[in-house]
């Protein structure tokens, strides 16, 4: 089936996109030989059958907002755009369940849900562009993960085209299900290496009636540690809990035009609940923090709050201006070692002699490190060494350092995932069984 609206592309495949569009599908410097945008699962299935036969390397492509993740593709023959698979075929507000196609943008889904005061409470960066397919592939999450978890916790069912083109579906629209293996868990976070998703069933949540945010400001790290520990041992139930270092908070402040309102270490805490519960928690937090704070405490009004969280979710404020190159690392640690790690990282990173910014999903054990490398220096090499060092320090707790984005000069030196634990063997075998010809995203993931 040719698309009449666009000039013809590769005549050997259905729903091909014209050559002029290929540039847009460049992944980490690699351009595909062809691209297609199927409208139905059947078309998608046909394309994968062809790819399997021709041994084409396939990269499923949503908005492209997360294509910096992982290693560059080893081979790249076909970009499979999911953008035309963007329907919302089933929506049952009274069941708190929705079925949505993989190319649908998250923002569009949320608009629909918000009209019924519902939401999918997982809001990662690139909120406006990101598609649900890309989000599931990356098991994306945002600041609200402290209270609401990651996408895997909401995925009830998944429609997958297998590497050989077979159409399959696992899970269903019910909210609790142990029929067969929990394939949704295997697929969430599999980075498009086990199959291409065509749709999903998600569980929904009601929007909180009210949200308020408290930002605690700290000059030094030890009080941050005390403040966090007190909060985590209390019955308070924040939905988001974000820590910024001084560099990051200064940048965010500038971006929001807040003229120095936030500075130093900033711990932003969001509560979302019934009004009475929110107000009580804000009051309680002020109280439990009164003894450990060495700076100010701000309670944001509704407008400020929206801007703050938009800013925090989108991490543009941590990104470099050319010619400097941005590196973004995701570090997995035990939650109670957060402050210690931040302290160590600051020391280690100053040795790189490049600007750096730290932020963390506090309470979830996830730190993001942003570093602005000057390509004219040896900074990339030094950072590569540091990544290796951190990885070995984290071995004992099975922690991780993942390069979420970064220039080739860095990725050529260290593997983006650095996964070396024994179960890697099992992951390889799974990949091998489900994509034996290795056509799905070859070389990009840990397997």
């Amino acid at each position, binding site marked *: 089936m040719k698309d009449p609206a666009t000039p013809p592309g590769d005549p050997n495949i259905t729903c091909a996109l014209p050559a002029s569009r290929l540039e847009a599908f460049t992944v980490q410097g690699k351009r595909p030989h062809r691209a297609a945008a199927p409208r139905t699962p059947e078309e998608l299935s046909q394309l994968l059958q062809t790819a399997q036969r021709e041994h084409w390397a396939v990269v499923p492509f949503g908005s492209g907002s997360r294509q910096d993740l992982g290693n560059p593709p080893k081979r790249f023959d076909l970009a499979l755009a999911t953008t035309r698979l963007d329907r919302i075929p089933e929506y049952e507000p*009274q069941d*708190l369940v929705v079925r949505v196609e993989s190319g649908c943008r998250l923002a569009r889904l949320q608009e629909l849900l918000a009209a*019924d*005061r519902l939401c999918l409470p997982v809001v990662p960066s690139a909120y406006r562009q990101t598609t649900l397919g890309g989000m599931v592939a990356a*098991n994306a999450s945002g600041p609200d993960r402290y209270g609401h*978890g990651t996408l*895997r*916790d909401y995925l009830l069912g998944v429609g997958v085209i*297998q590497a050989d083109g077979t159409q*399959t579906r*696992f899970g*269903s*629209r*019910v909210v*609790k*299900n*142990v029929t*067969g*293996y*929990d*394939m*949704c*868990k*295997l697929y*969430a*976070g*599999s980075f498009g290496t086990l199959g291409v998703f065509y749709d999903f069933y998600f569980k929904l949540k*009601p*929007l909180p009636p009210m949200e308020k945010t408290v930002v605690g400001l700290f000059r030094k790290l030890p009080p941050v540690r005390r403040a966090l520990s007190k909060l*985590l*041992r209390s*019955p308070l*139930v924040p939905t988001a809990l974000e820590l910024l270092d001084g560099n990051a908070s200064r940048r965010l402040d500038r971006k929001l035009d807040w003229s120095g309102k936030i500075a130093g270490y900033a711990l932003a805490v969001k509560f979302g*609940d*019934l009004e*009475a*519960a929110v*107000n*009580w*928690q804000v009051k309680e937090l002020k109280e439990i923090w009164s003894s450990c704070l060495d700076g100010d405490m701000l309670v944001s009004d509704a407008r400020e709050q929206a801007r703050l969280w938009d800013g925090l979710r989108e991490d543009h404020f941590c990104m470099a201006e050319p010619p400097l190159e941005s590196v973004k690392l995701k*570090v*997995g*640690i*035990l939650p*109670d070692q957060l402050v210690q790690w931040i302290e160590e990282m600051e020391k280690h990173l100053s040795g790189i002699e490049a600007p750096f910014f730290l932020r963390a999903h506090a309470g979830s*054990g996830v*730190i993001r490190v942003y570093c602005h490398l000057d390509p004219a220096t040896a900074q990339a090499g030094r950072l590569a060494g540091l990544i290796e060092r951190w990885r070995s320090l984290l071995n004992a*707790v*099975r*922690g*991780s350092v*993942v390069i979420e984005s970064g220039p080739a000069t860095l990725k050529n030196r260290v593997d983006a995932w650095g996964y070396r634990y*024994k*179960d890697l063997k*099992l*992951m390889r075998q*799974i990949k091998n*069984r*489900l994509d034996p010809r290795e056509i799905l995203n070859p070389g990009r*993931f840990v397997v």
Partner: protein
Amino acid sequence: MAVETSEPGFPRTEVRKELVDLLDSDRVLDTPEELLVYECDGLTLHSRMPDFVVFPSSTREVLEIVRLARRHRVPFLARGAGTSLSGGTIAAEGGIVLELSGMNRILQIDLENRLAQVQPGVVNQHVTRAVEADEFYYAPDPSSQVASTIGGNVAENAGGPHTLKYGVTTNHVLALEAVLPDGEVYRLGTAAGDPVGFDLVGTFVGSEGTLGIATEATVRLLHSAPAVKTLLAVYDSVSEATQTVSGIIARGIVPAALEMIDKNTIQAIEAGVYSSGIPQDAAAVLLIEVDGLEAGIDQQLEEILEVVRSRQVREVRVARSADERKKLWAARKNAFGAYGRISPNYYTMDGVIPRSKLPEVLGRIESLGREYGLRMANVFHAGDGNLHPIILYDIAREDAKEKVMALAGAILRCCIDVGGTLSGEHGIGLEKREFMRLFFSEAELQVMGRLKRVFNPDNLANPQKIFPMRRGCGEMSSLSEDSRDRLSRFEGDPEFVRF
């Protein structure tokens, strides 16, 4: 029905000797008298005796036993408390049962990171007991929680009344240690940030012992909610009760628990010593709980009461004290024990439907019961749409078993027809494996079969579970031409997995 027994396909004497060398004879059972209690689990409709029951006390010993089993090609499976309701704990091909009740230590409690690291034989409720003084708890609360083990919960992905708000087992397991059928120990997942690579913890949880034996679990702890409100609403009509459930969910309220108890169950409970004073002529009862902070709890309760009162409800009781709350829950908790009073035998089923279909499906199940001439009861997690139809029967009656199985099949079909699935929390096991094709295509079964092969290539770990065994000619000819074609295409494929 007894699963077919045949001569073991392994050198029994030699295996016995090696087991005794490893564990000493007091930790190896192999006489019929000793093995009898291990012949079945909570699902008494199936049974089969294992060849050996062994009691390992460490990961090391589990590993040695699995290696031995692998060497001699002996089927093996773990057993926690044996409360599985799907026949998951039955040694379908004999072999070795590893009874893990001796591996019951809580290895670490780490409140700063809100986690506990436990051995698989730890009883669910003991985790909460170990941390409740610090106001923490382990959220998944199967009704069997005083007996069932974390290992069994992990294998079955157990749920419970409060999983409506807090999620099932898989949402609370961060990491596992497991001995896999290849005779190696693996660590899966992590408590340090997000795991990298495929989510093998999520894949293992709910795999019913077919991928290996969990020898350790790192589970999440939650801070207990400071405030709880519980209410019981009594109805004269089932549909008013189910409409209330749908109404609560549709209002966007997620209670901590939302359970329904039907008339036959009420009568069974009230006939016993634990009577909770529910009127015997009530058609249905809803047990609803909200929890959270003290601030706002009354408003949560009010919103629920508003929905409850918008339908025809005979009576609403709100617990005013912890004691009263316990009493309201007693009815729900004693339900299973009570059926014995009104029926010689009963069979607990498990199916899930979209919750908005509750009124329709409950009606259909009731008429199916009449059609098959069997009495039924129902006590279930209404908020999740997770039904537990209970078939009451007398095994002494002629055709009883056949009739029960036929009715059970009809009920499962009915769940599938409305977009539901075969099981919400009890698993597929032996019980429902032949129904898997109602829900999965051959291609989908093959994908899961390939996954199974990665972990369990020789099919020694808990064989015959989950996957359908039958595919007789009758079944072949009932398939459409197209699916027969697809099937033969599969069978020609070197990757084709026979389950």
